[in-house]
């Protein structure tokens, strides 16, 4: 028969192609997870080391957590990090919410794709480039105003957090039926009432997701912070970077473990909130 001569691209079993049935898939998958999570294990383990070393484990102890907690520099850096992450994620989320409304809740207009690309600039431009650019710009402003406060860092963090807040909010809005607002207007809701009673409650999970993502991203940033900060404005990550240049103690592990725990908690809270509000 003619059919027998045809090359077949499908597996003989006739089942659709599945990557999971390919040889070596399981090995590769496990390898990837090991690479992702294995390095975290010694980090967390050595944060409980009773000794001074990152190489020899000398028994369990809270010693380095206590030491980090008592360290004035760590305290300042932690408070600064939290203030910075909280304000940057707040501002970024507000701006991202407005941007998401402007790019999804209107009739399509010319240049919409361009605006989408512009909003996501921080995802595309290398961070170091933004860092240098901000350094130069803020240096000029610092010279002119003689202001050296935290505002520079808040502005810089807000800027690069916007796309991280924007993407989940936009995704939420895109999955939302446009006719809901039309229905609200039909039922005598003014545009503001329609926004308050229908749009905002429905986009709330997206906003929360965006804010949490922005918070974690800000908390974690080194490059831009290192370039923009004035002297004595260390955040937790830049403080740790500074420590690396001196003697490394498990104190760094302890701080890292706390940051890790905060991230995990934030992401978990978000996951459950999102499931509940869906």
């Amino acid at each position, binding site marked *: 028969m003619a059919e027998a001569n045809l090359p077949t691209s499908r597996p003989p079993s006739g089942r659709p192609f599945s990557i999971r049935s390919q040889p070596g898939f399981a090995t590769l998958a496990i390898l990837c997870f090991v690479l992702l999570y294995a390095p975290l294990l010694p980090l967390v383990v050595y944060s409980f080391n009773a000794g001074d070393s990152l190489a020899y484990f000398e028994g369990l102890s809270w010693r380095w957590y206590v030491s980090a907690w008592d360290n004035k520099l760590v305290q300042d850096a932690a408070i600064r990090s939290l203030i910075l992450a909280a304000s940057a994620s707040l501002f970024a989320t507000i701006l991202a919410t407005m941007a998401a409304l402007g790019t999804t809740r209107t009739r399509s207009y010319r240049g919409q794709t361009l605006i989408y690309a512009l909003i996501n600039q921080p995802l595309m431009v290398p961070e170091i480039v933004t860092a240098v650019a901000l350094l130069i710009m803020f240096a000029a402003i610092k010279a002119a105003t003689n202001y050296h406060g935290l505002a520079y860092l808040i502005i810089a963090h807000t800027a690069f957090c916007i796309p991280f807040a924007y993407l989940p909010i936009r995704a939420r809005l895109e999955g939302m039926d446009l006719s809901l607002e039309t229905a609200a207007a039909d*039922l*005598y809701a003014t545009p503001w009432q329609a926004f308050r009673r229908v749009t905002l409650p429905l986009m709330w999970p997206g906003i929360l997701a965006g804010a949490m993502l922005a918070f974690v991203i800000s908390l974690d940033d080194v490059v831009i912070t290192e370039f923009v900060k004035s002297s004595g404005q260390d955040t937790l990550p830049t403080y740790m970077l500074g420590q690396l240049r001196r003697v490394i103690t498990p104190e760094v592990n302890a701080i890292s473990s706390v940051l890790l725990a905060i991230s995990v908690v934030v992401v978990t809270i978000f996951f459950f909130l999102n499931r509940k509000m869906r």
Partner: protein
Amino acid sequence: MGVEGCWIMAVREEATAIDGHNVSKIFGTGANSVAALDDVSVSIRQNEFFTLLGPSGCGKTTLLRLIAGFDTPTAGTILLEGNDISLLPPYSRPVNTVFQSYALFPHMTVAGNIAFGLEMLGKPKPEIDDTVERMLQLVQMEHLKSRRTSEISGGQQQRVALARALAPHPRVLLLDEPLSALDYKLRKEMQIELKRLQNETGITFVFVTHDQEEALTMSDRIAVMEHGKILQVGSPREIYDHPAERFVADFIGDSNFLTADLTSVSGSSAQLKLPSGKAMTASLPDGAFSKGPATIVIRPEHARLTRKKSGAAMSGTLENIVYIGTDTQYHLKLPEGTAFVVRSQNRRDAQEDYTIGDELGIEISANAVQVLRD
């Protein structure tokens, strides 16, 4: 609030609910512009079940959206009980809509959805609770009032959408193909339900559909639309028995189109000669007609087959027999080559046994011939 206050006025019998005067809606500009509505005038009476019927893209939904205020007309005016509402935003019009997708608020309960319009109107709480209860009863959904809208079936969502739109007691209720998402049986039930709700509430219903059967069974009057124009407005019987245009006859029901020769014209009736040479009386639609060739329509069920060819209006060769349960369709070819379908109801007694290839006579009922405008 103010919205309702301005609509307190004496409502006379047979007063119009909606008046559209020369309404046009053009989308796009320049060479890309499309006239979704082209100079349409329509008058919808108080308390009637008025249906806009036509294929997709005929402008029926556009007209509905203009009445609701989701779009504004490019030209023309729309009056609601005599007041110009053409440019009012949707939230200032005492008109509510049942959306094709229902558009229920997913973050609210069934009761919350129904109360929404009343809350926006600033009604006092006891009155809202009262109305919501009444609406729930009206659509038989009392037992599901605290459910989320995602936890109820499609047919139940449909009822909630209806109750939500009826709760503020609008002057006009607009329904945008609300039954199209339901399966056949549920759709039949909801057709009766809608008709009942319209009778009980006395609200003017403007119903958009592409389903001719739905239009025929539910409507007081139907407007048949095509290419942004209203071709004919009339009761279901008028539209079905006396279609004025070929499109109307073709869109609603099955039709046989023939060319006949008008021999005399007087008022709403005419004498004509069928292609077979037989003289018949026919009805004329409005408009000027002169003697000469004209298109006519004969419904398949208004013709009968007979073995006696001599006395019959026409004759033809039987080419196909299609059994459709209640009826049988006989497909014939007339001597001049035109196809002609005769439909006869199936009976257990005295069923004629025709076979393909038979030469048969076709009898046509009195008043069954309708002349069409071109």
